[in-house]
């Protein structure tokens, strides 16, 4: 949403966001060395352990990883909606247009949500409140972030539903979430994220709960909208195929660590980390009849008790003694990419 529109708005809260000086030349989003910890009965789990990335306008960043790797936690840390406690941002910076969100007052920061950064969740049925109509839930955004009246908010909600391709939006606006199909509900979620035309949308497994044909519809809608509005999109998924279709660059996460960051073409053609390589080799492809799948042996580690050294070494085919003792940092690899593996050269050329 443009600054001028905000200026036209009244109210103490909105003024708070106006006082913030966003640097229009700074990248849309910069995450620098983010650490998130969870305190549990069994000890402290380092859910996110030093993740950094940058997102520019109109760009799609993919965060790829299996369940429990910390990708959703990263997203929630950016949004500022972690449950604290047990979670705690233990370090790092989150800069939106050069402004550190961590240092922002909560009453200002909450206007960043929806206005600047919005989020789409995986399971739309549970992410939508069952006791309110979707129109009410959409309109709430306008009523609480702008000075829209109830009827204006409702009109806006109808517009949004129409925009995301929900037929008969005028009538459907009064329906409750459980009266929609899975795909339609996810469209409502997308509408909700788009409401204030944010600069960034974070989509956390947006199509995992959907059937493939519906997944195709939703992904198409999402990427069309992203291009129309030139938003930055952070797509979080475990699905390498979905990722290959939309992402510009990818950050692969494993056990709370970013293990590889690169352009989408590089990762899929020449992965520089054994984990990315293993993932690629273990998925069957619909367009090819492969041989035996090269599964990654073993299981991801328990986060409260990670293995010493490189977290991937117990499952790694490239592992040497050094990997058990020393944790590799993210090494710069030629071609503007990074890999957290001592032997990235070997991995690329293998």
């Amino acid at each position: 949403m443009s600054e001028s529109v905000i200026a036209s708005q009244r109210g103490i809260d909105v003024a708070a966001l106006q006082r913030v000086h966003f640097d229009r030349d700074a990248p849309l989003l910069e995450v620098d060395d983010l650490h998130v910890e969870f305190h549990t009965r069994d000890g402290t789990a380092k859910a996110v352990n030093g993740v950094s990335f940058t997102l520019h306008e109109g760009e799609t960043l993919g965060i790829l990883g299996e369940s429990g790797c910390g990708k959703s936690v990263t997203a929630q840390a950016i949004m500022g909606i972690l449950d604290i406690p047990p979670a705690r941002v233990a370090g790092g910076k989150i800069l939106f247009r050069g402004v550190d969100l961590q240092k922002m007052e909560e009453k200002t920061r909450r206007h960043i949500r929806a206005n600047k950064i919005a989020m789409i969740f995986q399971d739309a049925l549970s992410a939508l409140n069952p006791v309110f109509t979707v129109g009410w839930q959409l309109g709430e955004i306008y009523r609480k972030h702008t000075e829209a009246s109830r009827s204006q908010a409702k009109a806006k909600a109808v517009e949004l539903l129409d925009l995301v391709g929900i037929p008969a939006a005028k009538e459907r606006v009064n329906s409750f979430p459980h009266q929609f199909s899975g795909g339609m509900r996810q469209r409502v979620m997308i509408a909700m994220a788009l409401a204030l035309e944010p600069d960034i949308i974070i989509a956390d497994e947006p199509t995992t709960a959907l059937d493939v044909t519906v997944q195709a519809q939703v992904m198409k809608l999402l990427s069309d909208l992203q291009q129309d509005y030139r938003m930055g999109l952070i797509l979080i998924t475990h699905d390498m195929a979905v990722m290959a279709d939309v992402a510009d660059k990818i950050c692969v996460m494993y056990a709370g660590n970013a293990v590889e960051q690169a352009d989408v073409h590089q990762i899929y053609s020449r992965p520089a980390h054994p984990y990315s390589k293993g993932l690629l080799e273990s998925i069957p492809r619909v367009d090819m009849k492969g041989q035996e799948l090269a599964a990654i042996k073993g299981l991801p580690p328990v986060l409260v008790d990670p293995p010493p050294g490189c977290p991937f070494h117990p499952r790694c085919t490239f592992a040497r003694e050094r990997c058990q003792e020393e944790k590799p940092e993210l090494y710069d690899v030629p071609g503007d990419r990074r890999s957290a593996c001592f032997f990235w050269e070997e991995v690329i050329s293998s």
Partner: protein
Amino acid sequence: MGRYLIRRLLQFIPVLLGALFLLHYMTVVGIQISGDPVRALFGDNPPPESVLAAMRADYGLDNPCLDRRFDPCVAMFVERLGQYATGDFGIDLRQGRPITEHLGERFPTTMRLALIAVVFETVLGIALGVLAGLRKDRFVDNLVRASTVLLIAFPVFIIGTLIQVYVGVKLGNWIRGQDSMPDWFGQMFTVTYSADYPWLSLILPGLVLGAFSLAAIARLTRTSVIENLRADYVRTAKAKGMPGTRVVGVHTLRNSLIPVVTYIGFDIGNLMAGAVVTEGIFGVPGIGQFVFQGTQNKDAGIVVGTVTILVLVYLIFNLVVDLLYAVLDPRIRYD
């Protein structure tokens, strides 16, 4: 909504008839096992048999099926239903006045008492529950949890008698003895009901009556709030940039209250039973006291007639609560 309403109303009829039949059957079996209540009324000093027989005939207790153990006496039930339909719920065995007449006199007092109890238990119960739920595992939460468990372990009659002795008599006498205290203030710490202070002297009994449910509502609200705070849609509300008060007050509370509303419907039954005890202890001339005296005097006419009416009230209340439930939860409304 329409279909839900119709279905709920249609379900009401068999439950109503079933509950009334259950009441009838229990009375009948009780009489079949223990002998007729007219005889019991007089204890060791029975009047001549001819008098008893006349009384039995008056109260419809001369039906031969009452001599056959476990006979459901269906004909009698149908007859009773007809009487209920005309508003005839029997008469008390001693004075011979219609039960409904007694209840009419006593109804306003009991309503006041129930109102005090309901307001007390819902307002404070929900407030404590929300507070504890939001501060899970902190001091407030532990305090609420510990005190509510304790409260649940106190049967109403024990709280009632203890409060009467320690607050009503000991504290109350002291307050009433102070010249500086206004007269009405002492009436709040009453030992018994006083007709001069129809509201104030009901406050103490009202709190006693609501105590158990207060604890139950607080715990239920707490669990429900904790559960809902974890729900995905609460996270969505945060992600939408809603202020914390709104996330809790609108997005969490509305959902959390759904089970509480159900409980309150069920609780009306608790309140009725509690009123029997509380009104008995504090001498409140309400419907509960009427039942209390009926049991003390072994007046089956009073007990059966009044309880039947109370059950009707309870069922109607539950019906209303179920409809309210549908208003709160659209998933029920549009199933």
